[in-house]
């Protein structure tokens, strides 16, 4: 079943904005409400929107499942290894070894209120990004698999 032009074009226009908003929530996880899981779920909802709008096309070409699975593994490994790196650097598991180092996400912050600097937080934003990638990829793969089982009428209602 083919969705109407309105649905398809709106979905195409919305998709990049949804992804950017999701990425914003992930990246600002250490400053504002939200974080890796919430942002990843927002991004995955963009993928689900694409699936619904273009369900008459071949899903495999629309959404590269294999790449998503690799992204999922990458996210999990990034999370685990950034926690393990602390042990290799000589402190406890999960220690925030990047904070206040001047490196990535390592700008030292003065005590007291501030407008919220993005380049702070140490491994917390790194782990947010890892979780965001993992959740985006995993939820998208789940949605694709559930969609596949409803082919060929893609579960939509008759118009």
């Amino acid at each position, binding site marked *: 079943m083919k969705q109407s032009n309105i649905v398809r074009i709106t979905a195409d226009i919305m998709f990049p904005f949804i992804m950017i908003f999701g990425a914003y929530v992930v990246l600002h996880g250490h400053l504002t409400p939200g974080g890796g899981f919430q942002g990843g779920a927002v991004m995955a909802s963009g993928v689900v929107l694409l699936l619904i709008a273009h369900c008459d096309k071949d899903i495999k070409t629309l959404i590269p499942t294999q790449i998503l*699975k*690799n992204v*999922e*593994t990458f996210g*999990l*490994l990034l999370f*685990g*290894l950034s*926690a*393990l790196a602390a*042990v*290799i*650097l*000589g*402190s*406890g*598991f*999960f*220690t*925030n070894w990047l904070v206040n180092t001047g490196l990535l996400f390592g700008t030292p912050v003065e005590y007291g209120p501030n407008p919220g600097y993005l380049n702070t937080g140490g491994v917390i934003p790194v782990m947010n990004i890892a979780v965001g990638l993992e959740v985006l990829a995993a939820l998208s793969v789940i949605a694709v698999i559930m969609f596949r089982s409803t082919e060929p009428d893609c579960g939509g209602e008759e118009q």
Partner: protein
Amino acid sequence: MTGMDLFANLPGLLLAVPLIFAFATPLIGRYLPRARDGWVLLGMVLTTVIGLLIASAVFTGGTVAYTFGVPDPSVTVPPDSGGIPVRIIFNIDAMSAFMVVIAVVTGLCVMLYSLSAASRSSGKDGYYTLFLLLVAGVLGMVCTGDLFNFFVFLEIASLAGAALVAFRVDKGIAIEAGLKYAMLSTIGGLFFLLGVALLFGQYNTLNIAFLAERMGTTGLTTPDAVALVLFVTALAMKCGAVPMHFWAPDAYAMAPAAVTAFLVVSSQASLYALFRICFSLYGQTLNTVLLGWFIIILGLLSMFIGVTMAILQKDVKRLMAYHAVSQTGYMLLGVGVGLAVLSSPLLLSNFGMMAMEGGIFHIMNHAFYKGLLFLTAGVIFYRCGTRNLNDLGGLGHSMKWTMLFFIIGALAIAGIPPFNGFASKLMIYESVFSFNPLLSIIAMVVSILTLASFVKVFHSIFMGPKRPEFADVTEAPLPMLFGMGVLSILVILFGIFPEQVVEVMVAPAASALADQAGYIGSVMGGA
């Protein structure tokens, strides 16, 4: 990084190694499929080595407390926190170390066995990833000193376990069993979470040791009692005690045999948590006689109903699953007696400690012989394609080693010397007899019924003339035999030298469980 640092970080690595190996398995399986088996085996071997190192450190040097996320993990209470342990802490005392030993040894044997058992199935990446996650979840459950953290690991182990139960789809029957397991685990998990919330609302902390200390000063409040009920219900369900045992036969029977052998350990991690909460969290705050009797009655019900249901079964794995329920009853009985006399030092030293040692020793023995039995059942299914006792027969002609391993496991579960089941059951009989002779007699009757049931199974699987439909059945592949062999050797060794095992591991575990002040002191310092 020095060797000293690495050694101090072993509890963190115990969690990190299986997790990272699990996460990397899908990538390795996709791009280097030939390296996958070696990779997962390496992960399990490393985990085993780390686990055994931690255990030996705990048994020789006392409790190890490990704080996550600080430069020096041995500092449990930050100096600027006003004496409150704010971080997640792994508090590994002798009881935890004992459970770690069980988990890593069984896990390694199961992994060896899986290498050939899963060789014919598809989706091996997922299988090994989930298995390593299950191992990590169980290790986390038995090590953590934080109630919410325990809930997280409980969920990890439950979800990985449920997915593994459903791994072999089997026309949807396994999916149903997996779904049932997932659903009941979630209900149990939510009960547990509600209990945690009740405690957190009152004491503003999640650390078990700190909660125990604060509860000791305020006394038992009504919300504490409600939380206790929620904890005991959730964990008794997760460890498969009657009357909340109904998920166990389905899940154990439908999972691949290797998974079942480890699911037993996962259930025992819940059993451990039940004991940990009764002793270390509530302990002296509570009327332990009442709670002790409650656990004894759960144990009696599990023992008796488990074994009587087992006798009727025709599916060999379902039968063994009911026996697993029944054997859990022995552990509940032994430790329950210890709990009932906890407040009386005289009775505790007369027979209470011995009952607890028997119950705790039985956890380890059960993990080994029941693991062994499930693995033999898996071999039989692998070679013959059926688990129905009425269809099997005459396998003794072609599967001599499997038969030998089955005999060892069956005699151990029935409590026949010189196998390990005898050692722990004798400790339970003797000590429980001084508490209440009737309980001991029931336990012995259950053992006899167990023996009867396994004689039937042995006869219908291995005895009789060679059947034409199994004419081409051969002995199990070498990795499977090796996995079973290691477990059999442990079963025999622990049966011949029970005294050494009790002295080195079981007695410290039992006294660690009974010593609430020691548990609190290891985190809070002083005491």
